[in-house]
């Protein structure tokens, strides 16, 4: 492999991509090195008394949310891809929209509805009924909220699979004497194992990544513990050890994914569309579907948005407008810079993979994709540890240039770096699929017509790839906009974005003001989702 690189000469593209990959891997390497530091007292305390709790809580949340989202997501996906429904297209679009509401915002909304003297109490009071006590700020409550807003993740993945499933599979099972439900559970579900597991793993990673919701609900998990150990106890090595423990859970989940997917991949390759002819559902099925969809959409879309609009309308204007301009500027500027970086890195890595496919370039692509599995709290700790040691080694230079100590660590650069690593996979995935649809033929034709690499990219690759690049940019921008844990840990002093402002206002019992900022985030995300669906429909290539 290396002999071949030597023979071809190390191309600039290969060198740049290698540097990007090093930047992605470096924080994890620093975490690994820090594991060999002597064990601190606070870590012994954590290990003795609270670690078991963190593991237990994280696993309960992950398990509960996986089961519910798995069932709901699969049910909606199967129903909509195989049966005819009145307003089917509209329902399909609406079922995606809860994706636009980040779980931490949903957490504040549901917290506000169910707390004593909250919205529910007031409504019951007005109609002269006794208050009902629902302990929403609990593990059960967190599972409920996570499940509502992460169901679209499973829905999205399984629906794409079901639509590709050939009809004759189902028909041959029916002709072999199995009824509809036996066919579903014995044939369809085992066949879709790969897609279903893929969707559920995405949900699991989202739950482990969350900080805002579990913090607000007061549930000690890994992400809150890492934050607390670093900032509350100033124990870097303790935080690093927690991060490493969380990473082992993530690795176990990813290994389980590989195991469960098993031979499922084979069936995916064989799946061919049958032109999308849909059946009529039975009466009972219809009732179950409409009731479930109505309840789900009420809880995951109508209720939270109505509540947020209501709260926004009674928010104090002076509080809302305080530093509004700078918050908007921070959010947009960080979003735009990270988006550009993610897209450029995605194009470079995707192009290397397309033009010089090798074992190494495949490993690079795998590393980028795995980057998305690493929860934000781990990236934050890794990046912090990395930047602190870089700053320490540059302290001599800082002295000469008259810069403050920990110059990089306290700048916006660290935040932009971490966000780029975190969302690189999202940009890469869209661009990579664009590249693989497009293949090499146009590139080769252009080369044979006498044009060099840059001209070919500018006038052939780029215009053809544009829809994929725009999708990547929209995904990345919206994710940065919604991102909370990384921004919270790594932001410079006094630097606020829309998401951190929602977090601080909600934490300060200023839920009305938090709602205004939440609605901006949700509004932009909904517009982005709609734009993305238009782009997908409009792509000809």
């Amino acid at each position, binding site marked *: 492999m290396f002999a*071949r690189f030597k023979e*071809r000469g190390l191309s600039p593209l290969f060198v740049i991509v290698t540097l990007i990959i090093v930047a992605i891997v470096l924080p994890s390497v620093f975490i690994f090195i820090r594991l060999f530091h002597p064990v601190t007292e606070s870590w012994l305390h954590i290990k003795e008394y609270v670690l078991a709790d963190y593991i237990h809580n994280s696993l309960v949340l992950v398990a509960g949310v996986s089961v519910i989202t798995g069932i709901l997501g699969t049910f909606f996906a199967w129903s909509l891809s195989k049966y005819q429904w009145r307003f089917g297209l509209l329902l399909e679009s609406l079922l995606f929209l809860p994706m636009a509401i980040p779980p931490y915002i949903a957490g504040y909304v549901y917290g506000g509805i169910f707390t004593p003297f909250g919205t529910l109490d007031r409504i019951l009071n007005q109609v002269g009924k006794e208050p009902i006590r629902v302990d929403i700020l609990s593990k059960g409550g967190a599972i409920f909220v996570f499940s509502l807003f992460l169901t679209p993740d499973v829905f999205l993945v399984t629906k794409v699979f079901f639509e590709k499933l050939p009809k004759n599979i189902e028909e041959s099972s029916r002709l072999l004497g199995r009824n509809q439900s036996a066919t579903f559970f014995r044939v369809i579900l085992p066949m879709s194992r790969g897609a279903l597991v893929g969707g559920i793993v995405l949900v699991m990673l989202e739950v482990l990544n969350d900080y805002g919701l579990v913090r607000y609900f007061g549930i000690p998990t890994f992400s809150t513990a890492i934050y607390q150990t670093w900032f509350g106890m100033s124990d870097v090595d303790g935080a690093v050890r927690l991060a490493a423990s969380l990473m082992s859970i993530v690795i176990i989940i990813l290994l389980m994914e590989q195991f469960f997917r098993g031979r499922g991949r084979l069936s995916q390759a064989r799946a061919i569309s049958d032109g999308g002819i849909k059946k009529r559902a039975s009466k009972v099925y219809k009732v179950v579907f409409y009731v479930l969809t109505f309840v789900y959409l009420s809880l995951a879309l109508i209720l939270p948005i109505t509540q947020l609009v209501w709260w926004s309308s009674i928010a104090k204007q002076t509080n809302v407008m305080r530093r509004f301009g700078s918050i908007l500027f921070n959010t947009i500027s960080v979003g735009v810079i990270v988006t550009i970086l993610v897209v450029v890195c995605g194009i470079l890595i995707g192009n290397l993979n397309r033009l010089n496919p*090798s074992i190494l370039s495949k490993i690079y692509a795998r590393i980028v994709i795995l980057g998305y599995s690493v929860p934000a709290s781990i990236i934050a700790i890794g990046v912090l540890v990395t930047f602190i040691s870089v700053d320490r080694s540059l302290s001599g230079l800082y002295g000469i240039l008259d810069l403050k100590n920990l110059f990089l660590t306290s700048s916006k650069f660290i935040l932009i770096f971490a966000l780029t690593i975190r969302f690189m996979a999202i940009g890469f995935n869209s661009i990579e699929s664009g590249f693989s649809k497009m293949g090499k*033929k*146009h590139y*080769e*034709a*252009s*080369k*044979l*017509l*006498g*044009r*060099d690499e840059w001209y070919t990219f500018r*006038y*052939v690759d780029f*215009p*053809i790839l544009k829809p994929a690049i725009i999708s990547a940019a929209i995904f990345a921008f919206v994710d940065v906009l919604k991102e909370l844990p990384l921004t919270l840990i790594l932001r410079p002093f006094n630097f606020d974005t829309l998401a951190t402002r929602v977090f601080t206002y909600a934490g300060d019992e200023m839920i009305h003001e938090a709602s205004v900022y939440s609605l901006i985030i949700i509004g932009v995300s909904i517009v982005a989702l709609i734009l993305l669906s238009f782009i997908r429909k409009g792509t*000809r*290539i």
Partner: protein
Amino acid sequence: MIKLINISFQYDNASTETLKNINLELETGEVLAVVGPSGGGKSTLLRVIAGLEKPKVGEIFLGEKCLCKKGTFVNPEKRGIGMLFQDYALFPHMTVAKNIEYGLIGMNTTERKKRVKEVLGLVNLVEYEKRYPHELSGGQQQRIALARAIAATPKILLLDEPFSNLDTHLLQSVREELFGIIREIGITTIMVTHNPEDATTQADRVIEIVEGIASEKNWTKNNKGFI
């Protein structure tokens, strides 16, 4: 015109050589058909000549110019070779005229426009210059791809399975038309095909590649021998 000496090629992930010790020489204006079972290495031979793949050993000369030997490798964009791809590879976001202009490097606008008209005239599609590729039929797309490939007057033309995407009833007329143009401009041509009829009716010479090894076939009236 073109000369291949001891060309061997192996893909990175393959355990055996795809092309084994190929020797070949073509005169100016000659049309060579390359036949053989799929996976035998026919298309790889074209890609090696075009410079899209780098041979393990061997030399390639185009006229006096050395394209490839130990320590020398001319990139595809510098070779001056035209290629008609199996699925045409027309740029979907450019009009017919823009597609053809793309390869006309170093000409001013008036010269480019004139050349586009000329080659469109050659393929009988002058009035289609403002169309986009997806607005054309399969046969028309192929003629545009041919026009694009020959616009910059390459020294040699490579055809990769040129008729595999066409309906059977169109095959004969399109084939005659395509080779009519090729004979008219007198360009040296190498065509890869799985259809023996393409080879016998249109080529001056035929070689077969099986498991990477080439052998000359006596299929045409005009056989000149194989080195």
